[in-house]
């Protein structure tokens, strides 16, 4: 029998043991009655002879090897009693653990929802995302012509779906735009989606010429149409084009690819909604259409990849310019909210931070446990004196720790659930995302409880069992680790908050308050360069005479309002310089009020000139005059130097900028910037009327730059709030821990302190004497914390735009705060010790 079988038979064996001993007892009684005793006398005599029934059983269990099971129940019961008796300790410990484990659970829950969980679609395991790669290229999309070819020829895929995220569209006459995703007609049926009302797309919408239709999201239906039950069959206008609503997707519908649009349109009707659009017609158009598939039964992802690769090689004959050299197909699981493949390495960073918090929580708790251990010394001594073995006592204490750890896990679950719900609601998460923990979260949280129990409990428990009374190295180590970890977290919080503040309150280098951006959206509508130039010229000419308009210019990437940011880099003396390029008309610097420091701005129609920001000019030619220099092996000549801005990334002060004149091929992407004399909002109606009247096919978007700035600031503020909250938790944990440690130190030296006080010692002297014990470990911990953060500063550099990873203020601030907290935490128990009733303590010893 192995132990597991024994375990499963424990109940039966208990019963048998009982029967066996009872048989013995009864036989003994019977023998005594036969020898002439009355039954009562016989029983009494037998009981005396028999000895402790329970003791015999316990010994039998032990010799059989099932003792541990029974005794764990005993230990648990005893542990629960002990914890219930010292409520203050237990509550503090559980709160500390709930915080530490809760943060881990929260992080894991988010990871679980985003990456591990399968989307609630039909047969999610066979849904795959299909992308193309080559050694030189990565794009998320596949040209439509290739998708069509794969769809028609691939046998390893039972279905192929397409999605394309479209530009926001004007809904009816509303100011707010709605986001639309164009999908293949089988998208909903293949994912097993249900309609809240009406119906979803089907094969009838596979015809580009069929009547234009759309499916609303549940959210848009509620928000915009107040859940109108008669919405089906109604006509709405999207980007000025009429379309019939055929249905509303169910609230719980989960889109593929972390996409949560306001409505869906059939992909074949893309040319109707976006006039002159290219993605379907032009095989060279790449990067917008995502391909999804469903693996045929019994086909593996590798198998499908191989088949698609051979199809790709056939496709190359038809479209040699479309297929890359050495192109291959990568198939990844598709039914996840996020795919981590190729993403930024954020996971280890978050995991480290979260584990640090758990480690701090545990280090603090072990301090408290230590202080308590000093108080329990007498109880444990008593148990040893009564003959308990070391292993048995050790296991009892370990069980107590495990119980605490599990209670911490239990408390952590509702905590992380509440925070996660807030996060989901606040971030407008899709309805299918549930904050309720699933089995993975339960498993993780339970495991964290065990890990925590080992982290906080093992060393203090060993100490208690070994009955060491001297100050051990371990104690110093706890202080050291504690201070180090808190220090690292505080510095990190400080750095992040400072970086955020820096973003908020420093001069961006340009004046955005009175500027409006007009994006005509010519590119989406397939404007050619000449057509776009004509439109822009006409628009600018009609805007300039409007009263209240100070300056008008055109720009490819309007600052603050664009989500897209371009960057490039050059090497100067072996160091890479990050550059944000932009394409602007000569008046741009006037419109944005960016000072011209040297040289001149562009001339109208000038093609071979560039303008640099001062930062770029200095980095490229540290000691020379840049004007007239040739720019990086091109025929472009530097004609001017302008002030630095943080136009492209508000929180990146390292950025350098280069400005090119508008080029023919990017004219259709241009936006118009308008500077107003007064409140720019008063100009909006006039601008709208003019922009719309020049070309009735376009739907220009007018956005004040302040809106973009506010959006940036709101994001930064949210980030700072979260980081401050984490920092706050770290400080709270540090206070609990240090309080425990100093209490322990004082508790151990109560007698000494009393004697000193009785002999008339100075209270300040005693105070410093106790504190001095912590001086070395604290200094060492501070050093370790500084070293850890300093070591990571190069990695941090990327997150901390504008602040050095070695920012002295953050470091000094963190150290000052920690030392202040340390002293405050030490004051409390020492103060208590100094007010002790000396006579009583000396008497009790």
């Amino acid at each position, binding site marked *: 029998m192995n132990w597991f079988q024994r375990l499963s038979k424990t109940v039966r064996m208990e019963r*048998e*043991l009982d*029967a*066996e*001993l009872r*048989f*013995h007892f*009864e*036989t*003994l009684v*019977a023998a005594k009655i036969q020898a002439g005793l009355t039954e009562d006398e016989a029983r009494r005599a037998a009981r005396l002879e*028999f*000895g*402790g029934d329970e*003791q*015999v059983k316990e*010994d*039998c269990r*032990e*010799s*059989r*090897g099932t003792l541990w099971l029974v005794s764990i129940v005993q230990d648990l019961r005893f542990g629960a009693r002990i914890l219930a008796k010292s409520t203050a300790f237990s509550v503090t410990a559980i709160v500390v653990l709930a915080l530490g484990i809760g943060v881990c659970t929260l992080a894991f829950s988010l990871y679980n929802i985003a990456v591990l969980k399968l989307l609630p679609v039909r047969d999610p395991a066979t849904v795959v995302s299909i992308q193309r790669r080559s050694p030189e290229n990565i794009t998320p999309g596949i040209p439509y012509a290739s998708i069509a070819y794969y769809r028609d020829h691939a046998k390893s895929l039972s279905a192929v779906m397409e999605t394309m995220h479209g530009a926001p569209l004007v809904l009816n006459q509303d100011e707010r735009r709605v986001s639309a995703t164009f999908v293949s007609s089988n998208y909903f049926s293949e994912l097993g989606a249900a309609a809240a009302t009406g119906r979803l797309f089907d094969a009838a919408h596979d015809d580009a010429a069929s009547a234009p239709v759309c499916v609303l999201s549940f959210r848009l239906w509620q928000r915009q149409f107040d859940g109108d039950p008669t919405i089906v069959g109604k006509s709405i206008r999207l980007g000025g084009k009429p379309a019939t609503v055929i249905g509303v997707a169910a609230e719980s519908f989960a889109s593929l690819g972390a996409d949560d649009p306001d409505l869906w349109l059939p992909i074949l009707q893309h040319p109707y909604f976006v006039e002159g659009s290219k993605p379907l017609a032009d095989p060279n158009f790449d990067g917008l259409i995502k391909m999804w598939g469903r693996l045929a039964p019994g086909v593996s992802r590798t198998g499908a990849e191989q088949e698609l690769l051979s199809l790709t090689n056939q496709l190359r004959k038809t479209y040699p310019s479309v297929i890359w050299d050495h192109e291959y197909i990568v198939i990844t699981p598709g039914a996840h909210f996020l795919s981590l493949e190729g993403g930024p390495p954020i996971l280890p960073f978050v995991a480290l931070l979260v584990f640090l918090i758990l480690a701090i929580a545990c280090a603090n708790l072990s301090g408290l446990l230590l202080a308590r251990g000093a108080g329990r010394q007498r109880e444990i001594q008593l148990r040893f004196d009564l003959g308990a073995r070391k292993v048995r006592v050790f296991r009892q204490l370990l069980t107590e720790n495990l119980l605490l750890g599990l209670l911490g896990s239990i408390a952590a679950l509702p905590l992380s659930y509440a925070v996660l719900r807030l996060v989901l609601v606040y971030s407008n998460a899709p309805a299918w995302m549930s904050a309720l923990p699933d089995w993975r979260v339960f498993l993780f949280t339970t495991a964290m409880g065990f890990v925590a129990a080992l982290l906080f409990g093992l060393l203090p428990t060993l100490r208690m069992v070994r009955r060491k009374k001297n100050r051990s190295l371990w104690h110093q180590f706890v202080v050291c680790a504690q201070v180090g970890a808190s220090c690292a977290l505080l510095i990190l919080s400080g750095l992040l908050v400072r970086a955020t503040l820096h973003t908020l309150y420093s001069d961006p280098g340009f004046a955005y308050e009175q500027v409006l951006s007009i994006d005509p959206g010519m590119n989406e509508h397939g404007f050619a360069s000449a057509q776009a130039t004509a439109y822009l010229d006409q628009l600018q000419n009609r805007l300039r005479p409007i009263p209240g308009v100070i300056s008008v210019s055109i720009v490819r990437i309007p600052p603050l309002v664009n989500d897209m940011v371009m960057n490039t880099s050059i090497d100067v003396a072996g160091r890479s310089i990050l550059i944000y390029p932009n394409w602007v008309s000569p008046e741009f610097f006037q419109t944005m009020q960016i000072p011209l420091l040297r040289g001149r701005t562009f001339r109208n129609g000038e093609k071979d000139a560039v303008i640099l920001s001062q930062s770029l000019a200095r980095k490229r030619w540290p000691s020379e005059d840049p004007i007239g220099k040739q720019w990086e092996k091109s025929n472009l000549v530097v004609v001017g130097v302008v002030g630095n801005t943080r136009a492209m990334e508000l929180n990146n002060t390292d950025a350098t900028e280069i400005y090119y004149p508008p080029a023919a091929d990017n004219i259709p992407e241009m936006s118009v910037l308008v500077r107003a004399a007064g409140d720019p909002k008063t100009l909006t109606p006039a601008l709208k009327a003019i922009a719309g009247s020049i070309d009735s096919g376009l739907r220009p978007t007018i956005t004040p730059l302040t809106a973009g700035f506010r959006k940036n600031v709101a994001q930064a503020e949210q980030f700072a709030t979260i980081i401050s909250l984490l920092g706050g938790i770290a400080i709270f944990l540090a206070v609990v821990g240090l309080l425990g440690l100093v209490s322990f130190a004082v508790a151990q030296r109560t007698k000494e302190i009393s004697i000193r006080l009785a002999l008339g010692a100075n209270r300040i002297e005693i105070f410093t004497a106790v504190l001095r014990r912590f001086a070395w470990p604290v200094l060492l911990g501070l050093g370790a914390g500084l070293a850890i953060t300093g070591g990571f500063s190069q990695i941090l550099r990327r997150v901390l735009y504008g602040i050095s990873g070695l920012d002295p203020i953050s470091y000094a601030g963190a150290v000052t705060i920690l030392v202040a907290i340390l002293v405050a935490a030490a004051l409390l128990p020492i103060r208590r010790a100094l007010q002790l009733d000396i006579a009583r303590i000396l008497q009790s010893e």
Partner: protein
Amino acid sequence: MPSSPKFELPQGTLDLLILRVAALGPIHGYAIAQRIQVISKEALQIKQGSLYPALHRLENKKLLVAEWGPTETGREAKFYRLTAKGRTQLQTETESWERLSEIVSMILQHPLGEPS
């Protein structure tokens, strides 16, 4: 009951005695204690507190197997029986015990005061 002098059985000796008694055929715990008491002419009284843990230990080591069955009085009792492994164990234990007691008595019978 006459109080007999209390013997502390050397470690492992009880196991040997139990194996020896069980070698005679299936037997329950009470009878094992009785038989040892009778054979030793009341010199040895096996306490339940040591008998049953020893039985379970031997069962666990697969030197004994147990089976429930009726006694002569018709009650259900747990009968222990020697396994093949137990028989081998009994043999080796008996031999080593005999050797040990020979050696011990040899030394103890050595006349006092004589240099060895």
